[in-house]
Structure formats: C-alpha cells, structure tokens
C-alpha cells in the first residue's frame, strides 16, 4: 500500500491552496508561533510534525481561525486561501470554517444520533433542499468516511455509542458533509488503536482526491505513510518544509535530522 502512495506522490502538479506569510501567534505573553511562512498545495496531504508544544497545532488552528475562540490568542501576519486574506475584516469565520473543515484530536461526536451528527453541518449551512437531499448528503459523507456499511442500519443510534475508530470516522464524515475544500486534522489518530488508525489513514489517503488535507501528527511513520509534503516545526518556528520523501531521507536542517532519528522527543 505504501508503494502505491509513493508512486502517486509525483503525479500532481502543485497549485497553492493556502499561503501563509510571517505568521506570529501570541497567547498572552507567550510567543507561540514565530514568523512562519508556508505554501500548502491543493489536493495534497501535508503533514506538520515536531515535538510536543512546538506550535504545530496552534498553526493549524490559525488556518480556520479556531484561535478566535481563545480570548487571549492574538494572530499577526497573512494567511491567504485561494488568494483571499482570511484575517480580513470582511471575512466571517463562520463562512471560513465551512470552507476549511476540521477534525480534532479526540473524537468528539455530539450527543445526538449518527444521522444528526453528519447532518449537523449541512443543516446549519442550509445545503439540503429537502429531506431526501439531506439523506443523500449524509450517505455520501458516511461512504466517503468508509463508515456507511457499518452504520447504515442504525443511523438513529447515538453517535457516542460507536467505537473510538468509528467515532473518529464519524467526525470525519461530519466534516466532509459540508463539502469543505480544505480538511484540517489535529492528530486524528492519537486516541485510536492501530486498527482504527489504519482505517483512518486509508481514509485520509482517499480524501486527497477531493481536498487539500493538512494533518498534524506525532507519529513520524504516520507522516511518511500518508503525506506528500511535510513541515517540521520546532519551538514555534518552521524549520524545514518540503517533499515528505526528502524530509525523511535527506533532511537539510540539523534539528530535523535529530528529531527524525529520535534524538529530540
């Protein structure tokens, strides 16, 4: 399976989806992100790796302005998606987040039925004309998240009753149901067992067909399995960014090499 991914890696020509320039993030007095500039291509899986507390999750949360919900957080610099500054005053974060979906570290299904979980996004954004339409969207999203076969007979059961891996796939289905263009994943497998992790990784691989996926991960092997591009963060700085193969086999920076060879935890 890994071979297939490596073959595909070369196929696409990169078009830039997200362009970040000189991004700084402060939490109160803490300078969490320092001068990060990066271009994230479309229809690619980009992995952010680095030791704990290096700012990779913080940077990810800048991309759909989830940091707005933390009152002490302050973001400086430019982030453009499709050439539009997402921190422009005219941009409504609500609209932005519909375009940039997010999957979180811990599966967080709502305490509702499986159906209502997936239908939540389409409902608030008004994507469905009628019930049948909504049914279609839900089914498509669940299929895309490779969960349909497992849950199609119990759509009205509680989402919280599923297993951990199923819950995370449900959250992915919930995110893709609004048809975002970008999918942000914040360590989506850290709370899952190896089998569930494998399922989610397969899914990420398929999602690349339609979305630009940005994934934060702790596991270097996961980064090498699922991503085409990799960015290495260290103490709030972007140390190195490039093709996944190149980063893992021939890192340019000493710090990257230390991390990859296991000298920095």
């Amino acid at each position, binding site marked *: 399976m890994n071979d297939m991914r490596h073959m595909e890696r070369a196929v696409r020509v990169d078009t830039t989806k997200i362009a970040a320039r000189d991004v700084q993030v402060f939490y109160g007095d803490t300078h969490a992100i320092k001068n990060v500039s990066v271009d994230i291509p479309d229809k690619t899986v980009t992995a952010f790796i680095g030791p704990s507390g290096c700012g990779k999750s913080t940077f990810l949360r800048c991309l759909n302005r989830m940091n707005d919900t933390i009152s002490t957080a302050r973001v400086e610099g430019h982030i453009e998606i499709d050439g539009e500054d997402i921190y422009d005053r005219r941009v409504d974060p609500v*609209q932005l987040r519909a375009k940039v979906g997010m999957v979180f570290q811990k599966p967080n299904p709502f305490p509702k039925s499986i159906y209502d979980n997936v239908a939540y996004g389409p409902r*608030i954004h008004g994507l469905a004309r009628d019930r049948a339409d909504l049914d279609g969207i839900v089914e498509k999203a669940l299929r895309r998240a490779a969960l349909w076969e497992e849950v199609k007979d119990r759509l009205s059961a509680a989402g919280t009753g599923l297993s951990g891996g199923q819950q995370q796939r449900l959250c992915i289905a919930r995110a893709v149901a609004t048809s975002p*263009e970008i999918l942000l994943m914040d360590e989506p497998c850290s709370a899952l067992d190896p089998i569930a992790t494998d399922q989610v990784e397969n899914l990420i691989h398929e999602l690349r067909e339609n979305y630009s996926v940005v994934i934060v991960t702790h596991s270097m092997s996961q980064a090498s399995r699922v991503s085409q591009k990799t960015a290495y963060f260290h103490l709030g700085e972007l140390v190195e960014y490039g093709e996944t193969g190149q980063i893992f086999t021939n890192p340019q920076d000493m710090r990257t090499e230390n991390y990859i060879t296991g000298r920095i935890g």
Partner: protein
Amino acid sequence: MTDATASGAVPSGAGQGSLLAKDQRTAKRNAAEGRFKIYGLIAVCIGIAALVLLLTSILTSGLSAFRQTTIAMQVTLDAERLDPSGVRDYDEMAKVTTFGYAPLLRDGLQATIAAAGIETELDPGDAMELISDESVAQLRNRVLNNPDLIGQTIEVNVLASGRIDGFYKGRVSYASAELDSNISPEQLQLAEALEERGALKTGLDWRFLTAPDASDTRPEAAGLGVAIIGSAYMMLIVLVLALPIGVAASIYLEEFAPQNRWTDLIEVNISNLAAVPSIVFGILGLAIFINFAGLPQSAPIVGGLVLTLMTLPTIIIATRAALKAVPPSIRDAALGLGASKMQSVFHHVLPLAMPGILTGTIIGLAQALGETAPLLLIGMVAFVREYPDTPLDGGFFDPATALPVQVFNWTQRSDPAFVERASGAIIVLLAFLLLMNLTAIFLRRRFERRW
C-alpha cells in the same frame, strides 16, 4: 459557483465562493446570532434591574425609620402628683400610672405653645395628640428610675405621634388629615407652627435600633432592640453548636468514614436536608423542642436549635470542600513522620482548611439570620417588649423575637407607618448580612491558599 451556493441547491460546499463576500444565508445567521446575544443581555439586565428596584423600594420606604420627629419642651415634675406619699419609694411611686403623668406633658406642651406665641384653637387635649402616647410611658420610666428628678423642671425631647411623624415623612398631608380621625388639619398647622419656632424637629434618631417593639397604635415608638438581641442570641447558639458539630461531621465523612451503607445514608441525608423547605424545620422545632422536650415558646434557645439544624448541611458542605482542597501530600507528610491519622487531621489538615471552614460558617450564619418561616412556627412572632436577660441569667430561655420575624410582625399591622418600620428593619438586616458577607470575602482573600 457563487450562484450554486446562494441557491443552496447543489450539495457543493457551503464555503465555496469568495470569503470576502457575505452570502445571504450567513447574513441571516449572523442576525440570529445577534438576536440571541441580545436576549441574553436583556435577561442579565432584567436580573440587575430587579435587584436595583428591590433595593430602591426598600431603601426609599425604610430610610426614614432612622429619622424621628420630636418635640422639645420643659416639664415640671410635680411632686404632689407623682409621689403623694413623699417617700420616693419605687413601689409607692409605681402606683401612679401613666394617667398621672399625661397632664404634666400636656401642661408642658401648652407652656411651649404659649412661650412660642402660637395662637391655636385646639384645646389642650387635642394639642396633646401631637405627642406619642409612648412618651408618657417613657417619662414615667425615667422618673421611676431616677426619683431625684421629682420636683424639678426638666428638659424633655418627646416623640411626636405617628401621624405628625408621617406628616414630615410624606405619608400624611392636609388632604389625608381631613379624612383621618386620628389627626386634623389644625393639629398639622400647630405642628408646622412649632417647627417654625424650632420646638419641633425631624432628625436622625437611633432609638429605632434600641427601643423595644411598641403596640399597634404607636408605630413611632416601635424599635428593634429586642429583635436585635434575639437574633444575636440565636446566632450565638448557632455558632456554638453548628460549627463544632458541622466540622466534626465533615472530618468524619471526609477523612474517616468507611465506604458503607451507613456513610451513604448520612451523605444522602445531608444533601436532602440542604434542600428541605425551611418551614419543615419549623414544624420539627414545634413538635420536638416545644411539644416534646417542653422548651418554652418564643425563646432564642428553640430558634437557635432549629436554625442550627437548618444551617448544619450548609456548613458541612462548605467544610468538606475546604478539607478536600487540602492536598493529600500534606496528610502523607504527617503520616510519614509517624503521626496517627487523627493527629495528621487535627494538627495539619484542619488548620489549613480553617479559612474555608470559617467562610462557609459565616455564609451559613447569614442564611440563618435571614430565615423567617421556621421561627414563626415556634412562636417568635409574639409581641415582646421586655429585653431578654443576659445569656448567663438564662436569657436564652426568655421570650424574644428576631429581626426577620419582627419585619413580618410589622407587615401584619394596619397602620401604614409600620411599612416604614418594616423596611427600616430590613435595612438593618441587610446591613448585618452585608457585613457578614464582606467578612467572608475578606477571609477568603486574606487566607486563600492555592496549591
């Protein structure tokens, strides 16, 4: 693409299209968001407005209770009338009732009117209605306690009657006096004339805080003395009983109690008692303490016991929280040095939890101070004019009343002047509560420890 989003027809993305242009649906949703926020703001404002209205209503109608209209005059204490026996013996003098004293004040008032050069058509008896009946009794008490005054001419500052007092506090007007059998416009004119000459004044008067209650017809003399003492006695009893019992119970439950049915039963009972309506505690007090144990009605001891039982759950809950906040490492350190469990708790955990316990106790006491319903059932609404003795002389068993009950008592009287008294009593009650809560906040700020 933009069109597709606007119509919402195609299950493409909601966020497709430019981020800089707001689509209609987002605008609508933002409007809903704004409305929701405003509902919240309105709710908060209603809450605050209710508080402001409540406090202004009480303050405007109650502050005047601390002001009192008085008339200054000279009274000649005629020995012939007050002590015919001439031996200045208390028992002999006590035979002269208030009827013997009233003429003295009447004459004093007439002299004052004459000296001020006021022309009035009122006969001396009607003019006398300017003066509170209570003043006569007060004069009598003063003379009885100090027989040397007899024969002298003394300066007295007597209370004006309730209607005259009301005239200066806006309750009574010339129009209302026309219809009122207790006061006439001529009497009001006389009062105004006296005021011009400086004989009649309305000013601050602390007698409201010290005087005992007065009868239905003398609202101007009714005070909070007995109620404040009664409340203080009850608070003392609650403090002495509830604090040690509450702390002991909390220590047991938090530090020693084994996990068993009995412990569960205690826990369930405490959380339920915290939510039992207060009036039920009154029924308990009536049935157990008065009917069964035979304790006297209206006594602070019974009120104190009932309030203790009511306050215990509050104190226990606060104390347990305070004990829980002490980190286990402190206990481990003490145990590690070979202290027994009991020593580790009493020497280390309890002192550290003390600020929290005191805060909880003060809040419990504040709750008890404002409680009314249970006290009604154990007879504390009774009309009590005698100050209870000091606790050492058995004062806990003397009839007394309590601040909130006194408020209730006054609301049940017909003269509107008692509304002012009741509101004034509430101001006193709230002042005490404020003081207690500030103490609690001070304690928390001063001694709060963070681990």
